[in-house]
């Protein structure tokens, strides 16, 4: 038996043309589902990125004994940088600390108290997986055991709050994502099922003349994938436009990545395939 692939594809697209109205309605429904799904992922991704940026800024500062010479400071910095918990270690001299102080408070402390009371320090940017309150506490103990380290400061409470809420946020995100995904699958599957329902007569005639199940199914799978892909591309364009609009109004606060934009397209492909498979299955079994 010939596969007649060109005829199958032709028949699939003729079917779309013959049932223009239901095709357009299907496309609109799937586009809405995929826009919600993709938009939700884009928003969540940017929120997560915002939290990570915030955590990145919650660095740890190690204060060093005033008596350490530059060679000893360099050795200490090398030692700290080699730790797996540390992404980056930047030395801040007494003078730099004073400059920052002046810039921040607009007061010349040296003139008031007759000397620079600020100690030199090393500011740490932590590796991604160590930006938690527990890890920072462990790191503090470790740092204090290093000779020349007098004090370690960090925003412990903020670390705890950010960690706690980002965990809750992640659980909520996953739960909501599953709900949206489930709703999208239901909506897309049902929409495609209704589209196929309108062609029930066609299927019954195909069965009557002796078409195999695979043969009957094929054009509907092509239609489902076509609907899914086109809706995915439209959803992708809508999300891109909305994100660009937000960035224009609020100044580049959102990051647009290729994979984020491709999610609706891939989701459209798979859900279109799944939806049409489920939709046509019902009519093949009866």
């Amino acid at each position, binding site marked *: *038996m*010939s*596969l*007649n692939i*060109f*005829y199958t594809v032709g*028949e699939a697209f003729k079917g779309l043309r*013959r049932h223009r109205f239901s095709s357009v309605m299907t496309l609109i429904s799937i586009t809405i589902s995929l826009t919600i799904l993709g938009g939700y992922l884009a928003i969540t991704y940017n929120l997560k990125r915002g939290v990570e940026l915030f955590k990145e800024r919650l660095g740890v500062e190690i204060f060093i004994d005033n008596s350490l010479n530059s060679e000893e400071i360099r050795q200490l910095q090398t030692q700290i940088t080699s730790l797996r918990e540390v992404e980056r270690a930047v030395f801040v001299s007494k003078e730099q600390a004073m400059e920052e102080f002046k810039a921040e408070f607009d007061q010349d402390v040296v003139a008031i108290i007759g000397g620079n009371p600020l100690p030199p320090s090393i500011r740490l940017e932590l590796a991604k997986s160590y930006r938690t309150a527990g890890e920072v506490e462990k790191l503090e103990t470790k740092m204090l055991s290093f000779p020349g380290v007098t004090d370690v400061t960090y925003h412990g409470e903020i670390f705890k709050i950010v960690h706690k809420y980002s965990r809750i946020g992640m659980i909520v995100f996953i739960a909501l994502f599953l709900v949206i995904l489930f709703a999208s699958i239901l909506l897309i599957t049902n929409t495609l099922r209704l589209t196929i329902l309108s062609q029930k*007569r*066609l299927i*019954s*005639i*195909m*069965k*009557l*003349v*002796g*078409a*195999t*199940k695979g*043969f*009957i199914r094929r054009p509907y799978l092509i239609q489902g994938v076509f609907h899914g892909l086109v809706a995915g591309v439209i959803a992708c364009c809508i999300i891109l436009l909305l994100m660009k609009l937000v960035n224009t109004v609020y100044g580049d606060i959102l990051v647009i990545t290729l994979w984020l934009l491709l999610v609706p397209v891939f989701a459209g492909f798979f859900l279109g395939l799944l939806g049409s498979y489920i939709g046509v299955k019902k009519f093949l079994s009866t």
Partner: protein
Amino acid sequence: MIELKEVCYSVKGELILEDIHLRVESGDFVSIVGPSGAGKSTLLNLIHMKIFPVSGYLRVIDCNVSTLRSKEIPLLRRKVGMVYQDFKLLDDRDAYENIAFALWATGVKRNTIKRKALYVLAEVGLSHKRYSMVTELSGGEQQRVSIARALVNEPYILLADEPTGNLDPETSSEIIDLLKRINQKGTAVVMATHKSDIVEDLPGKIYRLNQGRMIE
């Protein structure tokens, strides 16, 4: 070709067909006559393997219902054409496309489709209306398209379920003549009808069915 022995069919405990015996050989013209609700359509649907008996022996060509696998049904239907009272045509296509569709759906190669479809349209006398939408055709012409579609895969058996049910006497007579011509070319025809007058002049066996039982 077709053999039924002690076949029973029921729906939710209600017996629709009881103890049916039927035998159709190659080249036969068999008429099944009976009033509405006698079980004629059910009997044809059993032969077309649309439904299955609850008991008894049923064989169509080389397919025994007790050993039949579901994937064999489409292949069987290519050897057993079927026409209905309501034609079951695709209204959004022309006569040619309705027939080409049956060929396409059974995997016939593209270059063969046109030749076969035009040939069978000529056989039923509709070459000149090949590109007319089926909705523009008369009832008799639509039934001819339906018969052409059933014949296009060159079946051994043609099942006709009330083929003249929606037609006036003159057109009915034309359709019966067409079925006779098809039968003369070697295709076995099994026709179910409630019009006992039209089967009187027909060749072959006549079975009478009433309330799900063969009475004659």
